[in-house]
């Protein structure tokens, strides 16, 4: 089921029957005189994996930062747990695209993950075990004592993801996390994040400029256009899980979604 742009703009509710844990309501952002985002509105249901896709400059990164509480919108608000988001909270975890700059180079992999636990005020005693568990989930146990600059791009991004998970977030915000990686690493991380988030029952808002990645990963895809950023389409992705790099991408429904979104995005370039 898709919503027409007008209906999507008005509705802050998620199209499922569960109440959203997070929503944007008429969010508008300006940098100086330049409008970046215009009346963005949609919701995110619990355990939902929502992908935000759009061309460069459509403000999706800005929108994510509004969600994280790092930027305040000029109009409208982001609503989390029924309250407006005014500042960051540990329950909203953000994963940045430039992983090498978002990790502390002087701390080991374990140390970087532990940073989130320190920030949360988790008691000293349980920290090591928690770090170990998270590194195990993300497949970095063997590299716990290494420093970020000794790791490949894909591994560094996994460290960031592990750190985000260490926050025990209710909502995970990911800003084009695989954009700087090569195709093969990207694909393996896509599968891993999909598996991980379903296993941990994590709610995710995932920003990407890659259409196919959005369809592949998402339960729902929100398409934005640029100048200024606006929601043009929201599509429920009715593809079977778990998804597979080969078969899912050849699924006729996948191709249909791709067609539909492609036109929207191309028109607005």
């Amino acid at each position, binding site marked *: 089921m898709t919503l027409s742009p007008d209906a999507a703009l008005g509705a802050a509710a998620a199209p499922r029957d569960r109440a959203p844990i997070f929503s944007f309501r008429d969010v508008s952002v300006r940098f100086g005189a330049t409008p970046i985002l215009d009346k963005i509105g949609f919701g995110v249901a619990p355990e939902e994996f929502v992908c935000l896709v759009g061309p460069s400059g459509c403000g999706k990164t800005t929108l994510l930062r509004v969600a*994280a509480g790092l930027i305040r919108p000029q109009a409208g608000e982001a609503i989390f747990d029924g309250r407006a988001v005014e500042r960051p909270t540990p329950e909203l975890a953000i994963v940045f695209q430039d992983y090498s700059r978002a990790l*502390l180079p002087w701390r080991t992999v374990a140390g970087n993950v532990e940073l989130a636990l320190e920030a949360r005020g988790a008691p000293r005693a349980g920290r090591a075990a928690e770090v170990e568990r998270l590194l195990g989930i993300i497949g970095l146990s063997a590299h716990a004592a290494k420093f970020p600059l000794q790791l490949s791009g894909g591994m560094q991004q996994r460290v960031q993801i592990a750190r985000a998970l260490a926050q025990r977030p209710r909502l995970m915000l990911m800003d084009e996390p695989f954009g700087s990686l090569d195709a093969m690493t990207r694909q393996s991380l896509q599968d891993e994040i999909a598996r991980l988030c379903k296993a941990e029952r994590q709610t995710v808002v995932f920003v990407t400029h890659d259409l196919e990645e959005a369809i592949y990963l998402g339960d729902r895809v929100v398409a934005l256009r640029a100048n200024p950023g606006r929601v043009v389409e929201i599509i429920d992705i009715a593809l079977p899980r778990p998804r597979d790099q080969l078969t899912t991408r050849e699924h006729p429904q996948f191709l249909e979604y791709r067609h539909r979104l492609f036109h929207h995005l191309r028109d607005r370039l």
Partner: protein
Amino acid sequence: MSKTAWRLASFAFAALLLALWQFLADRGLVSRVFFPAPSRAFDVLGEWFASGEVWGPLAGTVWRTLAGWLAATVLGVVLGAAIASAAVTRDLFEPTVEFLRPMPSSAMIPPAILLLGLTDGMVVAVVVFGSIWPILLGAIHGFRSVEPRLIELSRALCLGRVHRLWRISLPNALPEIFAGMRVSLAIALIITVVAEMLSSRPGLGQMILLAARAFRSAEIFAGVFMLGALGYLGNLLLERVEAHFLRWRPAVGGT
């Protein structure tokens, strides 16, 4: 030739130069007064260590240098963090820092003598004043240059101000602080020596000045040798400490 082979060759070359000096001195081809044979200087060193008379002055020079330099480090880092923290403080203090930087720190010795007399405190105070600048400048620069993404991260993680300073700004500034510390150590040693000369505090500086006044050149060279050794060892130790704290850095293309 391998690296170790070259190392040995360079030591051999230095030894050769030393031997040449010895040769020239023995033959009387250089003035024995000004350039005593190295053997005589080593004899003096031997006497000093045998009689134990060198330990006092050595300890004096070492502790004064260390005390001043460590105090300068702490002060420099704290002030640097404070100055770097806001544009206002930067605009207020950076011009003064820039003005005072080229100032010869030994020029503070006469006022320090006036204020504090010929005491150890005077020496340490001047060492602090002289050696703080490289650390202060390094700290200011290091604290200012934190990766913006990490600032965003600290906001996203809701790290308090103090936590952010301690966990992010300080480790980020460490490389530049260490660079400043290395320069400062060399400066601290020089100022200690000069202050000792002027204040007649028991130390290596005073020892070699007295030796000069008495025309005991072998003693001068023995003392200079010890000071050189101190400088060398201090730098070596600091480099090791730095290498440990900065071991996370990727290896830069070596020579």
